[in-house]
């Protein structure tokens, strides 16, 4: 019977069903807190627990889903390309903002992690949390971070930023849509971008561009990680 619950067919179907339910929940409640990933993970966790299935076995069985993470990252290049004109018009603020954002994101994690005395693999795991999931997990793996921590950090950061964005925009009196979009994308990547898109077209586009740009800068900055952590 356990072969049934660890078969790719079961696990992938379960994943799809849980994710779709998660999307429905978010659509019905309209809250950024109802992140489909969180809902899906909870549902799947419950089913795995109820059937006595190993999380590891589930993970192995979903190889076909995880395969698409790499291509899904590659298509971010298309998103950047589509916004190339907008980026070129204000290339200095855009590139400068994203660079500072990437620096702050990694820098603040490194400093705080040291202050808390976190183990290296936890610190490295959290370092790329501002970046989109695919790049973050790949970076974390390469530099010896604990990937599940990275996933946790990325989801938490995304939801945090998405929920806090409108408030922060008011607090900081951000008037320019490009400024708003870049700030959102740099700090809370894809989840934040869904909020940015609701705020406006330029905000959404810039947020998307920031994901790619901050991603690239973070990868470059991460090359220094072995020397600081």
């Amino acid at each position, binding site marked *: 019977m356990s072969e049934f619950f660890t078969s790719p067919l079961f696990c992938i179907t379960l994943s799809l069903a849980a994710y779709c339910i998660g999307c429905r929940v978010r659509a019905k409640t309209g809250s950024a807190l109802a992140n489909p990933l969180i809902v899906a993970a909870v549902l799947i966790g419950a089913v795995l627990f109820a059937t006595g299935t190993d999380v590891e076995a589930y993970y192995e069985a979903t190889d076909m889903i995880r395969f698409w993470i790499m291509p899904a990252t590659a298509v971010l*290049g298309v998103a950047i390309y589509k916004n190339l004109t907008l980026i070129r018009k204000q290339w200095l603020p855009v590139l400068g903002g994203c660079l500072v*954002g990437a620096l702050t994101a990694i820098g603040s994690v490194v400093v705080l992690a040291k202050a808390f005395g976190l183990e290296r693999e936890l610190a490295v795991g959290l370092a790329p949390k501002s970046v989109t999931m695919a790049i973050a997990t790949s970076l974390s793996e390469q530099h010896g971070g604990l990937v599940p921590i990275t996933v946790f*950090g990325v989801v938490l950061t995304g939801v945090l930023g998405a929920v806090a964005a409108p408030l922060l925009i008011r607090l*900081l009196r951000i008037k320019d849509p490009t400024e708003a979009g870049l700030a*959102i994308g740099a700090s809370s990547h894809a989840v934040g971008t869904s909020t940015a898109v609701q705020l406006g077209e330029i905000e959404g586009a810039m947020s998307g561009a920031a994901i790619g740009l901050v991603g690239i800068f973070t*990868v470059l900055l991460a090359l220094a990680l072995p020397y600081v952590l």
Partner: protein
Amino acid sequence: MDLLAQIAILLGVCLSGELLASLLPFSFPSSVIAMLLMLLLLATGVLKLRHVEGVTNFLMQNMAFFFVPLCVNILAYLEIISANMVAILVICFVSTFLTFVTTAFTVRGLMKLTRKKGEPDHE
């Protein structure tokens, strides 16, 4: 362009990314190389949007789904996460807030700078 062909092109770009990554003397995520390669191919016109648009829209719209297994995997590490929960929460909150603020102010400052320099506004 038909979807299967688009997927072939996309995976071809990914494959090239992997190849290039393995040739580099330092470790660099192959997914980022693939992303840059895609941007380059589109910007230079080697690839046109219609060659990748369909599969791109599908993957972008459903991007979160491909991370479901990774999220579930967190459950196997709940112990170590809760042991460091305070640190992790503080780091996430502070870092996200700081990143937002510094990015916004940098953009604001640089925008003022470029306007002062009298760069032509292309609006």
